[in-house]
């Protein structure tokens, strides 16, 4: 589903991503872990062609990421999500559907369903300017689900959510697993990652340190947090 081969990204003399290669299979729940500034978001941005790679290749479903068609079945949730303050959550979801060329009637049906999934019934017609950070994050997740994507790229999806919200998002992501969706998750919440994901990769200072099954990485009596700290601190 996702393939990175020898990907490097430099900002002047700073190497943000250094010769990283890995792949994510279809239906896999994959977590990319790393401390702040490790290069996680840069990898996501290169996958979506938000920023150009310096060298290497990235593809989604075999289509190079520089081709817009690679994003045809991708849903994306950014870390600090924003919605234009003058739009309601409902209008925003409809916009996302229109951008995917979904018919008006189908789009409305789909948006109604998504509003239910993200638990925002009753607030969908108020302006986004009145929403809390957590509510915007929920609508962001809703926007990522528009068009029934095959791949969800989530950059800190629980950012700004309260513990109840975090649990709801986790339950939602677990429910999507049964639909065969692939998830690429960037997260600091290691306990959540441990509960949701099958595989994980840890990067630090742009270098890939390890990629394996979480069950293999986390030994008896350990937690993912212990593993993460062990790898990052060397």
């Amino acid at each position, binding site marked *: 589903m996702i393939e990175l081969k020898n990907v490097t990204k430099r900002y002047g003399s700073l190497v943000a991503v250094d010769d990283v290669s890995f792949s994510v299979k279809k239906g896999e729940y994959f977590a990319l872990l790393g401390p702040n500034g490790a290069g996680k978001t840069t990898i996501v941005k290169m996958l979506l062609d938000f920023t150009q790679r310096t060298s290497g290749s990235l593809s989604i479903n075999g289509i190079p990421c520089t081709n*817009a068609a690679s994003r045809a079945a991708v*849903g994306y949730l*950014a870390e600090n*999500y*924003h*919605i*234009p303050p003058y739009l309601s959550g409902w209008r925003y979801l409809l916009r996302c559907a*229109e951008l995917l060329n979904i018919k008006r009637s189908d789009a409305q049906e789909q948006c109604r369903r998504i509003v239910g999934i993200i638990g925002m019934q009753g607030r969908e017609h108020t302006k986004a300017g009145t929403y809390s950070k957590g509510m915007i994050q929920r609508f962001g997740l809703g926007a990522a689900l528009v068009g029934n994507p095959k791949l969800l790229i989530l950059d800190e999806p629980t950012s700004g959510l309260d513990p109840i919200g975090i649990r709801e998002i986790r339950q939602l992501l677990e429910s999507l697993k049964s639909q065969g969706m692939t998830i690429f998750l960037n997260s600091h919440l290691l306990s959540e990652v441990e509960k949701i994901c099958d595989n994980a990769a840890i990067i630090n200072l742009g270098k890939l340190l390890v990629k394996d099954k979480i069950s293999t990485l986390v030994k008896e009596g350990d937690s993912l947090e212990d593993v993460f700290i062990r790898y990052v601190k060397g």
Partner: protein
Amino acid sequence: MSKTFSAIINIVKYTITDEVRQKSFIVMLVVSVIFVFLVRGCYQGNYMVNGHELDAEAIVATVSKVAFHIITIAVMLVTALFSMRVFKRDRDEGMQSCIFSKPITRMQYVVGKISGLWVLSSFFMFLLHAIIFLTVLLRLNIVMPGYLVASAICSFNLLFVVISVLLFSLIMPDIAAFLCVTGIVIVSFAAEWIFAISRYSPVTAHSGSTGWGIIYYLWPKLSGLQNFASLFIAGVDGTQVFAYIYPLINVIICCLILGALLFWRFRNEDII
């Protein structure tokens, strides 16, 4: 092909609706309409010069032409003002990351943005010109079909302003982009005046291709296009039109060059 087109149409639609929602846009439109309504007073009453009453048609033609030029210049500045923050607003409000996480190319986005702003600013200008047209029609029963044609021709000036402000806003602060385009407009008008004066001045008439002469021909001929368009207000025959068509060609070529630079620059832009 149809998907490409519908993506552009969607972006045009969002550009227009997002812009019209801005309070500053509404205020500018209302103030401009009120200002143009005030011009109708100029068509009332008799004008006397040295005890002779002026011909009504001459007054209509002069006032309408002056109003045409003032409206066109003012709308160019207004267009620069409301185009300068378009990319920044889309970036800050998350619309760029929303759009580019979908299968939409940067080319489609930029074409949609340019088209949306062009349509909106042309409508703005056409509305103001239409008020003058209707004022003359209703008060004096004079039809000036060339007035609206002239307005349509001047929309190429607005296209130039939109493209150049969008390009400059990628490489400098928004207000600097606005000032740069304002500078281009001012130099365009200054070059036109200086060249016109030099043609009739016995000292400079034979000096040939001076610096101003080069600027006159190569600089975006926004003033020239406006003058060319105003020929239609007076009513010209076809042969005259072709003699003065160079400004239109010049502005279209400038739009193409700046448009290509804008696409190239935006292609390398990081989406936040």
